[in-house]
């Protein structure tokens, strides 16, 4: 779609035509970059940790390089290390991945409308939709003069670059790093707290925010840290479905 617009404008030769890159792509990068800074801190820390973990488990840096590029789902990559050290069972690996990454289904449902009309960019946006990227792309207020598709592509790509570079460096230099970075990963928690607050400030009705916190906390207490995601998702889905009539009465719910 965008390339057609460019072609259409180049028919008129009077103003010196700025390239598509200068008008659209670079401004989108400049707008997207600040949003990704907290991810840079968090992903470098977690990525280095993950690379060092693979290194100490006896894998060359090529493993974290390709796994972080191709799997690109942080917690699952940590688990894959133990899968690689265990008995060969690809079916179990596949099913386990479905369970652990099931939360992506919710991200997809939330992005169905927003990714419409983005052409080939959409494929990469879906491919690279990790927790952090989804949260930014869903919640960021994109300036009106910035191309939405390119903004989201840059957020996705920058985040993936941070993750791949961090984990590869961890794999290469893993045994040499001795800086006290304890606690740096809190950047991720802080970011989700801020995004939660931003959503709260935007909504007129806070039922869904409160349900998300309360039901997940309840499931964490009942099922424990390793098993609470799927029950939380099911309970959230069930309660939101039951409340549909009531919540839709609020009209737009304050969400656009």
């Amino acid at each position, binding site marked *: 779609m965008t390339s057609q617009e460019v072609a259409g404008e180049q028919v008129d030769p009077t103003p010196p035509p700025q390239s598509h890159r200068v008008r659209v792509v670079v401004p989108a990068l400049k707008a997207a970059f600040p949003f990704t800074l907290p991810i840079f801190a968090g992903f470098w820390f977690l990525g280095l940790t993950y690379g060092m973990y693979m290194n100490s488990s006896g894998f060359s840096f090529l493993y974290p390089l390709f796994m972080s590029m191709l799997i690109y789902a942080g917690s699952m990559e940590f688990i894959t290390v133990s899968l690689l050290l265990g008995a060969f069972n690809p079916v179990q690996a596949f099913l386990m991945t479905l369970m652990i990454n099931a939360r992506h289904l919710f991200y*997809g*449902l939330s992005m169905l409308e927003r990714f419409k009309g983005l052409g080939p960019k959409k494929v990469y946006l879906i491919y690279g939709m990790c927790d952090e990227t989804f949260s930014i792309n869903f919640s960021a207020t994109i300036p009106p003069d910035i191309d939405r598709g390119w903004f989201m592509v840059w957020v996705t790509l920058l985040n993936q670059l941070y993750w791949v570079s961090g984990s590869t460096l961890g794999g290469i230099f893993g045994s040499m790093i001795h800086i006290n970075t304890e606690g740096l990963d809190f950047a991720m928690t802080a970011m989700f707290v801020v995004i939660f607050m931003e959503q709260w400030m935007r909504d007129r009705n806070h039922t869904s*925010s409160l349900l998300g916190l309360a039901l997940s906390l309840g499931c964490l207490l009942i099922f424990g840290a390793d098993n609470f995601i799927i029950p939380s998702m099911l309970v959230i889905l069930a309660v939101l479905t039951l409340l549909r009539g009531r919540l839709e009465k609020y009209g737009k719910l304050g969400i656009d």
Partner: protein
Amino acid sequence: MATMTLTQQIITIAAVIAGTLTTRFLPFLIFPAGKPTPKYVQYLGKVLPAAVFGLLVIYCLRNVSVLSGSHGIPELISIAVVVVLHLWKRQMLLSIAGGTICYMLLVQLVF
């Protein structure tokens, strides 16, 4: 313990990649852009994110133990710092950096 061959390793990693791709692409395959999305799914798309952000906050804190270690006090204080900073200035980076520095100081020097 069984040691995998390179081929078995590649197949295992491919299975994990296939699983991740499935969870990310499935909603878009079930509800393609060309057809109108059912009203119920549109409703979910609107109300789910707020709940998911709540779930992600809890997810980040899942390994905090209230009964042992530092009792979750560094987390509690640092989240309070994030909330106060954000209510005060509403600058995303400031709130995140402030909370993270506070947390690093607490876990490295105090607890």
